[in-house]
């Protein structure tokens, strides 16, 4: 009933997005295409977080760390070792996959706040590490001149070809999310999100299930990181600042945890909104985050959220401000 209606709404929104994306290049705005490309890449990172948080219910701030592996991996492999960008991208993804096991095996034994804190430290450390590892990463200056991807001799060096490439990757990530959510591991993740003990009582190996979510998400974030760097031809520590991962969380919370269309809508909103608000000058961030806070208060589970058991933030509102809660 309700599940079906929500799925219908999401399908309609995804169709609308697809139509919009096909029409967007005809608007002739380079800025629009640029922003939409960035949206696609962030949406991928949000999807990766959605697997960990929206499906498996684990809070991890490590997504930008895996983005950094993709970004720096591609930059270093292409500029230092002269590897083809088309090979550097999967090579970095393999590296991110391996790193997710090395990092995940000890960290994923932690629960709840402890996992969040440990991955938060990892996110903070990532930025410091790439700044400090100068011989490898060129420190705070970063690496520029990263060559673009070339597929079968056609270099994706125009804005429009990157736009197509990035949205194709984002569509693939969305499709992967849909498949995973309805597969057996998706069911296991959703059971895990409710409680580790219930999941274990259903024969689910929780450490393995978490590690799988972590590893799949790492690969998606790494691919997005590689594409980002090949798109802008530059990588530097600022791309993996702690603020970025917080933005990724906001994108997911605004869009809706566990949903299919949510990451794209959330990423678009947080990419475009600051530019619409640019006229407000120094008040830009204040208004922006004020609106975000209001959105989350009104829709605690986001536009397309499914996490109905999540702590409803609306409960912190004074009674006269509360929306009436539907009876369960």
């Amino acid at each position: 009933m309700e599940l079906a209606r929500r799925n219908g709404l999401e399908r309609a929104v995804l169709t609308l997005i697809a139509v919009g994306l096909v029409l967007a290049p005809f608007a002739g705005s380079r800025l629009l295409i640029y922003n939409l490309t960035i949206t696609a890449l962030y949406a991928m990172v949000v999807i990766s977080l959605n697997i960990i948080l929206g499906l498996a219910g684990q809070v991890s701030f490590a997504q930008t760390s895996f983005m950094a592996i993709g970004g720096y991996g591609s930059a270093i492999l292409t500029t230092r070792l002269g590897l083809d960008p088309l090979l550097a991208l999967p090579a970095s993804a393999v590296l991110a996959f391996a790193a997710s096991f090395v990092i995940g095996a000890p960290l994923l034994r932690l629960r709840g706040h402890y996992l969040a804190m440990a991955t938060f430290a990892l996110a903070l450390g990532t930025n410091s590490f790439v700044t400090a590892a100068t011989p490898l990463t060129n420190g705070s200056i970063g690496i520029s001149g990263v060559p673009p991807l070339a597929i079968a001799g056609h270099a994706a060096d125009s804005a429009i070809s990157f736009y197509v490439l990035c949205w194709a990757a984002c569509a693939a990530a969305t499709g992967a999310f849909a498949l995973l959510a309805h597969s057996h591991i998706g069911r296991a993740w959703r059971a895990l999100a409710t409680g580790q003990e219930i999941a274990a009582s259903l024969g689910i190996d929780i450490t393995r299930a978490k590690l799988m979510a972590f590893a799949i998400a790492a690969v998606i974030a790494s691919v997005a990181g590689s594409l980002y760097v090949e798109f802008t031809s530059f990588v530097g520590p600022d791309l993996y600042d702690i603020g970025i991962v917080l933005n990724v969380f906001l994108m997911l919370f605004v869009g809706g945890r566990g949903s299919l269309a949510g990451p794209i809508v959330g990423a678009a909103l947080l990419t475009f909104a600051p530019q619409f608000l640019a006229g407000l000058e120094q008040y830009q961030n204040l208004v922006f985050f004020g609106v975000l806070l209001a959105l989350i208060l009104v829709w605690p589970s986001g536009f397309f959220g499914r996490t109905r058991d999540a702590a409803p933030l609306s409960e912190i509102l004074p009674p006269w401000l509360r929306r009436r809660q539907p009876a369960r």
Partner: protein
Amino acid sequence: MLLRASEISVRYGRVEALHSISLAVAPASLTVVLGPNGAGKTTLVRALAGAVPLQSGAVSLRERNITALPAHRRVRAGIALVPEGRGRLPGLSVLDNLILGRHAAVQGRRGTREADLESALELFPGLRDRLNQDCSTLSGGEMQMLAIARALLARPELLLLDEPSLGLAPLAIARVYDALARLLERGLAMVLVEQKAVPLRAPREVTVVLQNGRAVFHEARRPTVDELASLYLGGRAA
């Protein structure tokens, strides 16, 4: 013996929740665990299911030591738990729940998906119309039946049930216990935790009464109402 717990103790930090409990569960038998709130009943079934580590003691299944076996592997070994609070999984449909339960069974013991679902629905026909419904919309009684059906799909030899009647209407309790009686007849062994009475009899049964983490009654008969009252008020049966 199907399951044997030897002098198991469990600690939560500095609190000893279970003190040296021994239990032997025969195949196709009923073990009733009674006791007031906080007596250690839930801890006992959780310990048998592998959800809490033991401070000391050992658990064996068919004479194989499973003390170190983690919870998810005990399910595959044949011990299924219907947890307190019924293990509701919001966002998952009734069908999703059943499929999850089915996947908990070892590959060899699993039937086809259709046959497995049919066996679950035959026991709880009320779930048939609700397969595609989010399980968070089920009533307490329906959810309890789903939790049992889900656990049974793991093809256990031993079913651990933690207060299945808690918070249910009398009619729902009757339905749940009807199903449990049929399962006993089919030869499933059960460890059944309740606070007071258990409306279920079996030819082979043992009753354990817990008080402050200790077994204060352990016999092949049920305690009388008077005995139970004095046990709950502390001390041993007169």
